Structures are given as C-alpha cells and as structure tokens.
C-alpha cells in the first residue's frame, strides 16, 4: 500500500514526440474548419470572374492537404497503451 509517486514532470524524447503528435491530431479539425471558411471572406470579384473555379480548386486543395497531414499523423501516433494513456488531459 505504498503511496503513488507523482509522475515525472518531463518526458522522454519519444513520449514527448507522441504527446505533440496527439496535440497535432487534436488540432486538425480546427485547421480544416478555418481553411474551408476562408473562401467565404473572398470578395465577389475574384470568384465571379472565373465562375468560382478558384473556390473549387481551393476547397479540393485543402482537402488533399488535410488527408495528407492526417495520414502522416495517424501513421506516427502509436496505439495507446493503458499506462501512458491520456496522462496529460485527464489529470
């Protein structure tokens, strides 16, 4: 029945990298939401001239970017083991 020693403040390099990758994964939907809202702020002239193709290309371009970054993050993030699970957020 020994008292639980407090978790160490600093992590090893690999665990630290994992934490930051998870932060990145958390950030993704916000990045996507902001990027896809950008064309809303475009003034009418640039979009009406080319019939909106720049908007089309922009939206699909952001889409490819999101897929690529998410794929990168998902391949780097290790499936969480119960021990280091959520140590940062839930305590």
């Amino acid at each position, binding site marked *: *029945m*020994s*008292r639980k020693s407090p978790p160490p403040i600093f992590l090893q390099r690999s665990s630290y990298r994992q934490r930051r990758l*998870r932060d990145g*994964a*958390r950030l*993704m*939907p*916000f990045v*996507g*939401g902001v990027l*896809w*809202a950008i*064309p*809303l702020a*475009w003034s009418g002239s640039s*979009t*009406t001239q*080319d*019939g*909106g*193709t*720049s*908007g*089309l290309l922009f*939206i*699909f371009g952001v*889409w*490819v970017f*999101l*897929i*690529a*970054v*998410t*794929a990168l993050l*998902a*391949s780097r*993030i290790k*499936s*969480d083991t*119960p021990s280091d*699970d*959520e140590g940062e957020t*839930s305590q």
Partner: protein
Amino acid sequence: MMPFSALIAIALLYVSLLFIVAFWAERHAATGKSKWLQSPWIYTLSLSVYCTAWTFYGAVGYAARSGLEFVTIYLGPTLVMVGWWWILRRLVRIGRAQRITSIADLVSSRFGKSTQIGMLVTIISIIAGTPYIALQLQSVTLSFAVFAQVDGSSWEQADFAQTAAWVAVGLAVFTVLFGTRNLDANERHHGIVMAIAVEAVVKLFALVAVGVFVVWGIAGGPTEMLSRIETSDIELWDQESGRWISLIFLSGAAFLCLPRMFQVLVVENSDERHLPFASWAFPLYLFLMSLFVVPIAVVGLELLPPGSNPDLFVLTVPLFEGQNGLAVLSFLGGLSSATSMVIVATIALATMVSNHIVVPIWLSLQGQQGAVMSGDVRYVILLSRRISVAAVLTLGFFYYRLSGGGTALAAIGLISFAGAVQILPAMLGGIFWRGANRIGAALGLLSGLGIWMWTLFLPSFGVDAVISQSVMENGPWGIAILRPQALFGVTGIDPLVHGVFWSILINTTIFILGSLATFPQPLERLQGAQFVNVFDHSDAAPSWTGAAAGAEELLIMSQRILGSSEAQGIFERESERQGRGREFPEVTPAFVDRLERELAGSVGAATAHAMIGQLIGGSSVSVEDLIAVADEAAQILEYSNRLEAKSAEQERTARALRDANAKLTALSIQKDAFLSQISHELRTPMTSIRSFSDILREGDMPPDALSRYAGIIHDEAVRLTRLLDDLLDLSVLENGQVVLHEQTGKLSSLLDRAIGAAGVLGGKLDIRRDRKDEDLTLTTDLDRLVQVFINLISNAQKYCEAPSPVLTIKVSVQGDKTMVDFIDNGHGIASENHALIFEKFSRVSDESKAGGAGLGLAICREIMHRLNGDITYLPQPRGTGFRVVLPKTMTSAALEKM
C-alpha cells in the same frame, strides 16, 4: 439499346453476388478465420454507407442547382474524421467497454440505463430516418424508370409504387437474413459489413468511371474541363456564409448521430486501431466521391435538353452518349448506395426499436415474473427484430407513397439530418461532461425534437399539408413569434439554417440547464464517471450489491438470451476464475456486472439492467453504497498514510538510538580508561608526597635537600589541586551554576593574554596572527573566553608533534558571527574521534604528556555554550583545527559603543 429485362437480370445477379459475399463472410467469421475481414480497409469502406443514393445521384443535381454547396455534405464528415482523436476515439472505446449496441443504447446507458431515454432517442431516430429510407426507395425506382424510358415504356404512378414495393421487400429479406440471423454478443454483422464494403467499391468505381468519361471522354482533359466549368451557367461560388457553415456543422453532426453511421463507426468496429487508418482513408474516399461531381453537372447541363432532371445526370449522361455499359455500372453504383444505406439503417433502427421499445414493453407485460418465465427470450428478441425490420421498411415505403415521390422528397435529406442531430447535445454532453444527467437529456431531446418538427419537419410536407398557410404567415393563434420559419421574430434567414440554429440552441440550453438544476440518480453518476473517464479505468465498478439471486436462476435467464452454450461458457469461465471447479460460480457483484454486460451486448444496457434487476430484487447501487465505498477507500488511504508516516518516524528514532548507543559504548570504554588514568594521575603525586613527607618526618638532613623535598611536595600538591579544580569547574559549568561577569575588551588583547598565560612565549611553538583582523571589540565574560583560548593554545603546544610546530590564529566575520580559528600543523585527529573529543574524560591519544585529564575541551565547550557561542572541530588537510564561534551579540553590543 439494352432491354429493360436485361437490366433486371443484371440487378438480380448483382444482388445475389452480394448474398454470396455476405454468406461467405459470415462463414469465415464463424470459423474464426476472419483476419482478412478485420482489415482497416473493410472498416473504412463500411463507413461509406454515409454516401447514399441521395449523394450518389443527388450530389450532381445539388451541384447543378447550388454550385459548390453540395460539398459541405462531405466536408463535415471529413472534419469529424480528421478530428478522430476528440470524439470518435472516445465513442469507440466507450462502445467497446460498455458493449453498446446502438446510439439509443449509448445515450440510455450513459443516463442510468434509462428505458425512457432509449425510447426517446429511438423515436427521434425513426422519425428522422424514415424519410431518408423513402428517399432511397425513390432513387432506385427513378433509376429503374430511366432505363424503362430508354426501352420505350413510360412509367405510370402505379409502376413506381410497384417497383418501390419490390425493392423494399428485397431489402427486408436481405436484412432479415444477414442482420437478424443471430443475437451476436457484440452485435457485429460480418456478412453485412463485407457486402457493404463491396458495394462501397462498386459505387466509388462507378462514379469515378463516369467522371473520367466525362472529363477525358467528353471534355477532353482537365484543362478543357476547367474552362468549361468557368463558362458554365452554374454559379459555383455563391455561398451565404451562414448556410455554408451550418451545412458543414449539420453534416458533421449527422455523421456522428445517424443510427446507421453509429452502427458502422462504433458498433461494427472490431479494432480500435482501425480508426487512425480510417481518419485519412475515409476523407480520401469522400474526396474521390465528390471530385467529379461538378464536371458531371456541368457537362450534363450542356449536353442534355433543358428540363432534364439533374439528379439523374450520372445515369443519363452515359446513356445520352450511348455508353450503355457505363450507364449500367452507374446504375449498379446507385443501387449499391441505396441498398447499403437502407440495410444498415434498418438494422440499426430495428435493433433500437427491439431493444428499447418492444422488449421493455414485453418485459413489463410479463410483470415481475418476466425474467424467470420459461421459454426462449432469444426467440422473442429475434422475432421482434425481424418485425422491426419489416416495420421500418414499411414505414419508409408508406412515406414514399404518401409524399408522392416528387421533388418534395429530395429536400428532406437535410431536414432528416437536422432531426438526427438533435441527439448530439445529449451524446456529446454524456461523454464529456459528468454533470450531464437524465432529466436534462430528456428535456433537451424533447425540446429539440419539438422545435425540429415545428420549424422543419412539418413544413416540409408543403404548404397546407400539415401546417396551414395562415399559420406559416401569422403563427399559431396569431402569435407571431411562433411562426415556424421565423421563430422569435427572426426573419430573413434560410429556413434550414433557422431551424437548425433554434433547435440545437434550445436543445443544448435546456439540456445544460436541466442537468444543472436537477440531481442525478446513483447509477447515472456511476455511468457518467465511466463514460467520461473511459480512458482512465476501463474496468467497471460493480453496480450490484447484495446479490439475492441464485446462480441457477441467472443461468436460466442468460441461456434464454445468449443461448445455452454461450451462457454455460460464461458460467464455466467464472467458476474457473473463482476456483470452484465444475460447481456453479458464486454470485458476486462483479460477476453479476460482467453478466449484465454480456447481456447488454445482445439486448441493450437498459433491458439487460432491467432483467437482472428483476432477478436480483432491484438491489442496485444506492447513494449510501457509493458514499460508503468512497468513505472506506478514503479511510484505508488515510490509515496507510498514517502507518507510513509512523514507520518513517520509528526508523528515524531507531537510527538515533543506534547512534546514541554507539556513542555510549565508546564513552564507557573511554571512561574505564580514564578511571585507570585518573587513579594513576592521583596516585603518582600522592605517592611522591607521602614518600617525601616520610623523609622529612625522619629529619636529620641538609637544609638544601630539605627545601628541595618541600618544593617537590608543593608542586605535586599544586598538580593535584589543578586536577581537582578542573573537575569542579566542569561540574559547575554543566550544572549551570556559573555566574558570568560581562566585560568589554579587544579581541587582540584577549589573545595576547591567552598566549602569555599559556606560557608558550619563548618556547618552541610559533604563533602566527593577523592583528588587523583581530581589531574587534567584545562584550562578554572575557575571563571565561580567555580560558578557552588558553586551553586551545596549550593543547596545540602539548599535542603538536611537528618538528617546528606552528599555530595559526585566524579571525574572520561571516554574517552575524565571528570565527576565531586555531590551526596547527600536527597530525590532526582521526575522523572516528571527532564526535568524542568534546566529551568529558575523553582522550584521543594514550600519551599523558602534560598530565591532562581530558577535561580541557569539555570545559571549553561548556563555556562557549554558556556564552551563546560554540566550539567545533575544523577538519584540515594537515593538522588540527578548532573553530570558536562568537555570536553577534557579543560583538555588536561592542560596536555600538565604538
């Protein structure tokens, strides 16, 4: 031209192929060789039930009418998928830990396994889901009609209805066969998931094929395509920001809340690790599905005669160009989209209806004896599911018939989304906020449902269908702020945005306020903690106390739900765990909890809880139990902390005692040595005094010898007296009887006095001093201080064995203390003796050189303590050092006088 009958044959062939795939997958899963079935690709493809016929055909029509707005339907789910770490990961983990069977089960399980909440969510899902199923029937029927028209026949209303009926029946058969074959403990359907994955590939392939044909076959390449898009009539980018953002939110939320999506995302998920893969692969799927939508719409508008239905461009463009094969492929893609959606939606809805409406009602009709009645409950549950499947499809069919299958139906897709999304606040609140409770959830769901019905669903039937024109314009009973499309006087915004905004806002607000204002039941709090902290402890705290049921009764009941072999397997494993061999296991709360979870995998948490509750006698967890458990845990923790503190203290004491003992032993040895020493010291002068006084008594001797003998006797007596004086002095100091006489003087003159009195002047000892440092004025008992100095100087004289002995006296001021160090160049003192040199009677060396009795340093220490100073041994690299520490008061008082 292809005959219509050939198309029917192809469709039937395709469907039978799906049957074979599903059957094969079921067989493989049953034999356990399902490695391939559990690949993340299958999981990702199964998510494609999101892309229904409405999106397969409808997206092109949507793009033709509203430009890029169609893409919002895919952007929302993309954001949810790339943000998998937030919500989906949590949902999947909860789904596995709690054996969730549907979204209604999730919400009901979270809010205290409440039957009412489960019913409410089920009802919302049915109302929102039925039009969507009708939409699928419509699109399949329309695509058939397109081919029939090409074949030369024009369809009547009756033909449409008949086709829709046949499609509905066919889907019902497929769903019943593969969706309700067994009561799986995990509620997973390998056959159906596999069939859906195949259909996902077919529909993607079909749409991409049509797109490639349009871009490269008709337009002549991407660059030409882009210029065609630029010059086309479609207003690609004419977005109102409110609608754009609302639609992204709506589709993302619906992606989480639609029963069919929850089914494939959470319930059918066999491995959490598939989620990161799907997080990018499914957005990629959506990307490819929407990539060619705009080109097809643009080309369709150019080629086809005005007035053609843009919703069918995917079919009619290839047909117009004479590409029959491509058209059939596209038809199969549309058929796949419709069937996969309807099958999964029906399974999900049927599970919900059966677990949250039929079985609870059946149980309550059976009364108290419900769970122990004879008969196979499995049969009842399966039957109720099959009937539910048929009922859901029938409902969809009737909705299709009633709505007339016109364009009004096409608009219902988003309204249906908005209905399903009403579950979102309760669901997200439930998994992120422990304070969310049953009453808040129920009130939120009810208000959301009400506002959605009033602002979106009922008006969708058309003017004067349900809500009259005058109510739309003036509000019910003339209350203007209740107008369905201008609630609270908010006018001028899109009706969909208006409805979504108000329903979600009021739903969420009432959910939060209701949760804040009311108090949850114990089981809700238990479940709340488990859901919100699902990553901290995946093991459940037992929620059953004082199990009153016998193991036999429990076995009978679980046999009837899980089947005898499965149930007996569970009981045997438990017996093994408890180490009871082949006997029945003991009914512990933990076992009952495990059993309940197994049952929940089949019939949902609420029903499983209710059934167990009937057997156990309703002795579920109470607040007192919770508090008792918490108290006990806290007490144990505190007790163990106290024990630990105590044992640490005892260890410290033991160490101090050991040290003291060692010191005492050393002292005792020293004391023995001293006693023999002092008897010798006393004896030697005594002996000489006695013998010389004997000689004197005899008389008759020369005067010079007389005076010499008398001198010896005197010297010896002085030595004795000094020894006794020292002993007396020490005793007085130790008893605190000494009286101090305060005087003021210079440190340098004190040292002069000490050196003079120690009698070292002109001797061998070389004393080095720095008179500048010694220029300090002291106020203390100067005579006593000089006594200490004398002792230290004469010690150096006595014990320093160096050939040319040197004593250095250094004075330094550190902070509020003055240090006087006496350092010689002798041998020093061994470290094991450092603790002893200040003790009485202690002598480091056996040599009794100057007849010291080992009292000098003890006296010094006592004096310094009386003067509030200290004397310590100062370890040196070479030689012996002592440090006399004079406290500030001794010097500062003097400084004031200067």
